[in-house]
């Protein structure tokens, strides 16, 4: 029966491709017509072609299975119907993201130097000092360009009324960009004809831009800095991405045991030629595993002495340790103020209205309205540890209320957004599925925003959990001219 667009329910939530009236949104007409013209067999064929491409390109992600081997590699779940964004809207988003990341970098730099924002009383000092991701070890360090968060992945969502919000900023070790790049490659194999009839902006300049950004951080006087990507190893869920980016940038992929800090406090990697200096390290492991001399003494993933090397200005670390202080979900609630404070500008992109459980008035409201709110822990990622009030049982809500009362600093709450949807191929027809968007913002000598980003989609009907570790899939994201 193929895709019957007249049966597609686009009036329930904001849909990215289809208006409530059932007509295609601007720029989507061609895609809608083309998909509608495919019969069941053709749809299955395209879907199969995508699966085949994913398998033969080896696009996998690792999930923790709890079996004896601990992890399994799964093929990347992918929906063949793309998500579209108009170039005009994207230009605005790009400006807003750069503004946001600039302000966040000012904030981090301030926190590790004068702490003006605390002295001026805009943010209570205790919020910073009790943050799990504030690192006193980073005080008074001045990274190149005063920039700390070089790679940021911000999650964007659209609510019922079509308004776009920033849901969170991932400043520690954001992942997903390789899937954005691979989704496009798969799409080109599956629907080559669409790329000749539409003006779809390419995404594949990202690795070159990342390399450029990393090179601009070079602290040493060498014209061609040695860049390395530090991975925790093959059992990490993003290992595929680590190898992908290292290859695409012609950088070395290293693990902690490949590195050592010399007596001269430079960072070296052990090669068949002996020690070779590393100038810029794109590290994909958390702060606390980075240096057993300073943080977790049991860590075998990091490099002893690397914090000394960084402090001495002999190696650049991206992202800089301590960045996570701005990734805290309670600090998130202050981002509009942070933008105003450091840049003296009004935010171009909105925050989701949020409640800080640490403040009594907010907390009382949250506890009274748990059945309407989403409550998130301050420092978790991957969608773990949160309560989706409207979907939780009374028992789960009561349990969570206890946790909030016990440790209010650790929680913030937001109204449950009815995330926008896009048509997603289920069997051989299209159904709306909720989604978000993670663009990647690079900050070095200059700024760069990926073209579009990674669209993650909750494959289960009605679900708003888009994380790949919890059954989410993804779509190619097209920024198009009209």
């Amino acid at each position, binding site marked *: 029966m193929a895709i019957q667009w007249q049966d597609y329910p686009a009036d329930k939530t904001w849909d990215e491709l289809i208006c409530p009236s059932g007509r295609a949104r601007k720029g989507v007409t061609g895609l809608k017509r083309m998909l509608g013209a495919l019969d069941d067999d053709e749809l299955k064929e395209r879907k199969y072609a995508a699966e085949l491409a994913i398998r033969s390109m*080896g696009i996998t992600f690792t999930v923790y299975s709890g079996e004896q081997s601990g992890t399994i590699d799964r093929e990347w779940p992918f929906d063949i119907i793309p998500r579209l964004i108009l170039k005009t809207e994207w230009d605005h988003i790009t400006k807003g993201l750069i503004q946001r990341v600039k302000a966040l970098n000012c904030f981090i730099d301030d926190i590790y130097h004068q702490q003006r924002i605390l002295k001026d009383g805009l943010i209570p000092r205790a919020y910073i000092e009790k943050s799990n991701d504030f690192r006193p070890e980073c005080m008074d360090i001045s990274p190149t360009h005063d920039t700390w968060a070089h790679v940021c992945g911000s999650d964007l969502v659209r609510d019922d009324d079509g308004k776009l919000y920033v849901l969170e900023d991932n400043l520690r070790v954001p992942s997903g960009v390789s899937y954005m790049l691979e989704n496009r490659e798969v799409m080109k194999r599956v629907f080559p004809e669409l790329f000749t009839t539409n003006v779809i902006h390419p995404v594949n300049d990202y690795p070159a831009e990342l390399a450029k950004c990393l090179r601009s951080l070079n602290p040493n006087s060498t014209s061609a800095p040695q860049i390395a990507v530090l991975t925790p190893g093959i059992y990490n869920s993003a290992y595929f991405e680590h190898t992908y980016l290292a290859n695409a940038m012609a950088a*070395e992929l290293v693990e902690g045991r490949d590195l050592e800090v010399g007596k001269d406090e430079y960072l070296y990697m*052990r090669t068949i030629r002996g020690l070779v200096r590393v100038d810029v390290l794109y590290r994909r492991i958390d702060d606390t595993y980075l240096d057993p001399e300073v943080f977790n003494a049991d860590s075998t993933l990091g490099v002893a002495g690397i914090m000394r090397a960084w402090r001495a200005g002999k190696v650049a670390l991206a992202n800089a340790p301590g960045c996570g202080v701005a990734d805290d979900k309670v600090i998130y609630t202050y981002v509009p103020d942070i933008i105003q404070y450091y840049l003296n500008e009004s935010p171009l992109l909105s925050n989701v209205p949020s409640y800080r459980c640490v403040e009594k008035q907010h907390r009382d409201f949250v506890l009274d309205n748990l059945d309407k709110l989403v409550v998130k822990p301050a420092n978790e990622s991957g969608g773990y540890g949160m309560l989706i009030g409207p979907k939780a049982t009374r028992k789960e809500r009561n349990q969570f209320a206890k946790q909030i009362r016990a440790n209010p600093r650790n929680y913030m709450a937001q109204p449950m957004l009815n995330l926008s949807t896009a048509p997603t191929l289920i069997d051989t027809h299209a159904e709306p599925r909720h989604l978000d968007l993670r663009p990647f913002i690079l900050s070095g000598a200059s700024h760069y925003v990926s073209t579009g980003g990674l669209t993650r989609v909750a494959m289960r009907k009605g679900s708003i959990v888009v994380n790949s570790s919890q059954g989410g899939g993804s779509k190619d994201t097209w920024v198009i001219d009209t």
Partner: protein
Amino acid sequence: MSSRTLSTTASRTYWLGRYLERAGSITRLVSVNANLLMDLPTKLQLGWLPLVEILANQDTYQTLYVSPNSHEKSVTRFLLSDTRNPGSLISVLTYARENARTLRGTLPRAAYEHINDAHLYAQESIQEPLSRTRRSNALQHVVERLQHIDGFLSATMLHDASWQFLRLGNFIERADMTTRIIDLRSSNLLSAQSTLAPFSDIQWRSILNSLDAMQGYFISRQNPINQRDVLEFLLKNSELPRSLLRCFSTIRNCLRSLPRNTEPLKLINRMRQQLQRARVRNLENEKLHRYVGARQKQLSTLHQKITHTYFPDA
């Protein structure tokens, strides 16, 4: 060539090379032995135990299989599918797969899939109970898959430093296996005076077969199979892919294109020259055993020098 190959990458590719080569040797030896036994009179109790001596630890075997009913069944199981034996085909393929998994940034993307596939195939098809026909078929397929991996890597991988380490692993393992096979097979060869002398040939034939050298022998020699010519051929022929000299030459070429090669290169050059000058035709019994043993010692020293130079901590 990249000067920046990490020591751990070099070490992993080197061991991947050794494991893949060893998997091939195990498979070939088991099939050849099965063939050999069919040609020998049963009163010649050569049986299966010599394979344990070539390929694994005899103590491990005897601890695991106390007075087995049939050495054929227990030895083949021990050598092929027994995960308790670190030298079994399945164990070696598991190590190869694990190494390949960590090398996904270095090897071509599909290499891991091919190696994984060989491992899965062996796991599924070499399971007890295993009839002789099924075993023989399965082993044939394993050999083909390994050859496929070999060819795939050669045709798709950059021939850079990592490739040289893969080949070093291949050929050091191969050289070692060639000496082991010659050593063991010759030590229990039938003496020429025995009434069973006619079967002595068959044993040399099986040596040639274990080393994929039968056809090569007949192409390059006119003589019928005899001990002296076979020995000369397996040790000193410069064209036979598994001859000791050929292995040494390949190892030398690999080392030549690597940095910091002074120490290991000096040793392999000496080993190669000694072999070229050696008169091996007339070596017999104890003398042959000693000669081959000395080559194995040299190979082990070479392995240590390579490890020490390129991946001391890996």
